[in-house]
C-alpha cells in the first residue's frame, strides 16, 4: 500500500497549466473544421457532409455548423481549399449560433444566460458537476472521466464531481436524447438547485449529429431543455470540455479564439 506513494511522486508534475497556458494538440490533430474559402460554391457541396453541417446559400456563400460536425473529414478531402481541420482543442460556445462558422449572417441571438459566476459570486471556486448520459456513443464519458486524471486534474480549478443532482451546479449532458432518457433528463435538471448551468457535451448532444431526429431520438439536448454552453466534437477532447466548464462558470470569456 505504502509503495504507491513513491510511485505516485516519481512521476513528477504532468498536469496541464490550461487555461493559463494554451494546450497544443499534436500535429495534424482533427480539431474543429474551419472554412477557408467561403465564396462561389455550388449547392452540391452540401451533400458531402453526412450530418448536413455544410450550408451554401443562394449567393454561393459557404457556412459550416460545428454543432453538427462529427469531424469525419469528408469535406476536407473533397474540397481541401475550402475546409481544413484547425489545430486546437477548444470548441465550446455559449450560443448555438456561435458554432456556425464561415460566411453567414448571424441574427441577433439575444443575450446568453448569465454565467454561474454572474449569478452567484460564491460559486467561482467550488463548482459541483453532475453527468447524465442521454444516448451518447460512450466516448464522451471517457473524455469527461479523463478530466479527473492527473493530466487535467480539474479539481485544481475548483470543479468537483457529485453523485447527487440536488448537490450539483453544472449538468454535463451527453448524447442525442433517446426516448427513454428524455424524462430522466428533465427530472435531473428539475431537481438541481438554482443557479445552475447545462452543458451539452459532444456533437450528438449539440444537434443530434448522425442520429438526429431518428426513429427513437431527439435532436440534441436543446430540443428538450435550454442549454448554456455547447461543446461540439465527436467526442470533444478533455480540454474542450474543460473549456466549456470554464465558460459556464464564467471563468473565461468566450469567442476570444474563434
Amino acid at each position, binding site marked *: 500500500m505504502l509503495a504507491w506513494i513513491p510511485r505516485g511522486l516519481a512521476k513528477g508534475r504532468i498536469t496541464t497549466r490550461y487555461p493559463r497556458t494554451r494546450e497544443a494538440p*499534436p500535429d495534424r490533430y482533427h480539431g474543429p473544421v474551419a472554412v477557408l474559402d467561403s465564396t462561389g460554391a455550388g449547392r452540391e457541396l452540401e451533400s458531402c457532409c*453526412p450530418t448536413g453541417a455544410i450550408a451554401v446559400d443562394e449567393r454561393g456563400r459557404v457556412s459550416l455548423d460545428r454543432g453538427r460536425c462529427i469531424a469525419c473529414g469528408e469535406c476536407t478531402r473533397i474540397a481541401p481549399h475550402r475546409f481544413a481541420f484547425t489545430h486546437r482543442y477548444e470548441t465550446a460556445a455559449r450560443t448555438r449560433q456561435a458554432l456556425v462558422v464561415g460566411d453567414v449572417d448571424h441574427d441577433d441571438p439575444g443575450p446568453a444566460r448569465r454565467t454561474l459566476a454572474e449569478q452567484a459570486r460564491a460559486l467561482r471556486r467550488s463548482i459541483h458537476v453532475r453527468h447524465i448520459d442521454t444516448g451518447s456513443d460512450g466516448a464522451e464519458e471517457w473524455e469527461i472521466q479523463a478530466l479527473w486524471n492527473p493530466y487535467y486534474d480539474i479539481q485544481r480549478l475548483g470543479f468537483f464531481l457529485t453523485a447527487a443532482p440536488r448537490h450539483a451546479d453544472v449538468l454535463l449532458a451527453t448524447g442525442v436524447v433517446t426516448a427513454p432518457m428524455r424524462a430522466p433528463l428533465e427530472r435531473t435538471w428539475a431537481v438541481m438547485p438554482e443557479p445552475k448551468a447545462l452543458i451539452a457535451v459532444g456533437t450528438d448532444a449539440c444537434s443530434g449529429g448522425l442520429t438526429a431526429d431518428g426513429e427513437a431520438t431527439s435532436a440534441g439536448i436543446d430540443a428538450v431543455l435550454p442549454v448554456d454552453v455547447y461543446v461540439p466534437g465527436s467526442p470533444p477532447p478533455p480540454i474542450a470540455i474543460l473549456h466549456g466548464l470554464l465558460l459556464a462558470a464564467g471563468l473565461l470569456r468566450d469567442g476570444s479564439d474563434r
Partner: protein
Amino acid sequence: MSLAARQSELPDYLPEHLGATREPGPPGEVRLRVSPLGFGRASQMLHRAGARFVTLLIAGAPEPAIVGAFAMRGDLVVLRAPVASGQQPTYTALGPWWAAAQWTEQELADRDGARPVGLVELPGLTRPDADALEQCVMGLDVFSLPFGPVRSGVFEAIQFLLETGGEDVTRVTTRSFFKHRGLEQRVIGMAPGEAVHVAERIAGISSVAYGLAFSQAVERALGVTPPAHAERWRAVHAELERIACHLDVIAKQAETTALAVGHARFAILKEQIMRLRARLTGSRFGRGAVVPGGVREQARVAPDELLAELDAFERDLSRDRRLFLSTASMTDRLIGTGRLPRSLVEEYSAVGPVARGSGLSTDARHERPYGEYRRLGLQIVTHREEDAMSRVMVRFSELTESLRILRQACEHLRRANGELVAPLPAVGSGCAFGWVEAAQGELVIWAELTNGLVSRMRVASPSFRNWALFEHAFPKDVLTDLAFIEHSFGLTAAGADR
C-alpha cells in the same frame, strides 16, 4: 506473402446431418440453407455439438430469410431459412433450451416482428421503463432498488434493478436499451465509406473495432481483399484500442477501491495511449483510420518511434501491475467476487474477457483469424478462477500480449511499404458477416449491399451478448460488489443498445 485458404474443420457430413444444403459463401462462413421447419432442429443439433450462439437476424438478401449464426470449430455456421414472400417471418424459438438466444429473440420480435413459436417473454427488454419497480423476491425486508439510468458517476445509461435485503443481493435485473439510437436503420442507403462513420459510433470506446468489423463485412460481401500493409496498420490501431479499453477497466477497479494513486497511475497510462492514438490518426479514438478497403492514410508516427514509445510504456505498466497485484486492499475485493461458473458462461455463449476469465478460450482473432492475425502468432490468455479477479488478470495478460503483437506488426511495417487501400466496386452487391475481437469480446456485423449502397446492417455486439449474463454474476455477493462486478465485465451500453 500468400496465404492458402484455411481448410474448414467441420465434418463433410454436417449439412446432411442438419438437413441442409450447402451454399457458396465467403471464406470462414459455412452457409447452409434449411427449411423454415428444419431451422429449430438444426440449431438444436448445433447446440448439442457444442456450437456457440452468435446471433439471429432477418436478412433481406439474397432473399428474405431468418439467419442464425453459430461459431463452431473455427467456422461461422450460418443457417438460412427462407421466409415465404409476404408472410411474417416465423421460426421455433431457441430460447427455451438455449439461454444465449433469449435477448436476441426478444429484440427480433420487438423490432422486426419475427415472433417465434415458444418465445421466452422478456417484457420491456427493448422498451425500458425506468420507473417500473417490479419485485419478484418476496421476503422480510426485501426491497427493490433501481440503480440507474442516471448513474452516480460518469457512466453510461443502464439500469440495474436490485432486489436486496440491504446487504445480500438476491436478484438483479439488467435493463438495457435506454440508449437505443437506431444506428442500424441509419446506415440504410449510405455508401460504405460514409456508413463506416456510423459504425464507428455504435460504441465510441471501440470505434476501431466497430469500423473494422463493418469494413470487413463490406469487403467480404464484395469480394475485396485489403492490402497487407493496410491490414498491419489495422492491427496496430485495434491493439492500441484494446490496451486503452483494458486500462480503463483496471483504472476503474482501482478507483472503486479508492486506491487513489493506483487509479491515477492507470489513468495516466490510458491517457498516454489516447494521446499516442491522436498522434497516429488525428483522433483520440482512432476514428476515421479504418475505411472499407483498407486504411485512410499513412499513420503519422513512424514504426520506429512507435516501438520506442511502447518500450517506455511497458516499463511503467509492469511496475504498476506488480504494485496492483500486491495491494491486498485491491485484490481482496476482486478475489471470489462475481463468480461465473464455466457452464453458465458456455450456456450464455459469452465472449471476450468474461468468457476467458472463466476458462473458455474464445477469441475471434484465434478462432477465425482475419487480416494481420492470420500472420501473427497469437497466444490466448485464459484464467480459470471464474471471478472478477480472474477477468482483471485476463486483461493484464492481454495487455502484455497486445504489446507483443504491436511490436511484431511494427517490425513488419518497418520493413515493408505498400498500398493502403483497395478500391471497392462502385455498384457491387452482396452480403456477408464481418467479425473482430473487440476489447469487450467477439463482435460480428452482418452487412448487405445493393448496387454499392448499404441496404442492411445488423450488429451482434459483445456487450449485448454479455449483459444477459450479468444478472447471474451475484451468487453470494453484496450490494457494494456491484461496481466491481460491473467494471470486471467492462461492457459498453452504447454497443449493446445500438
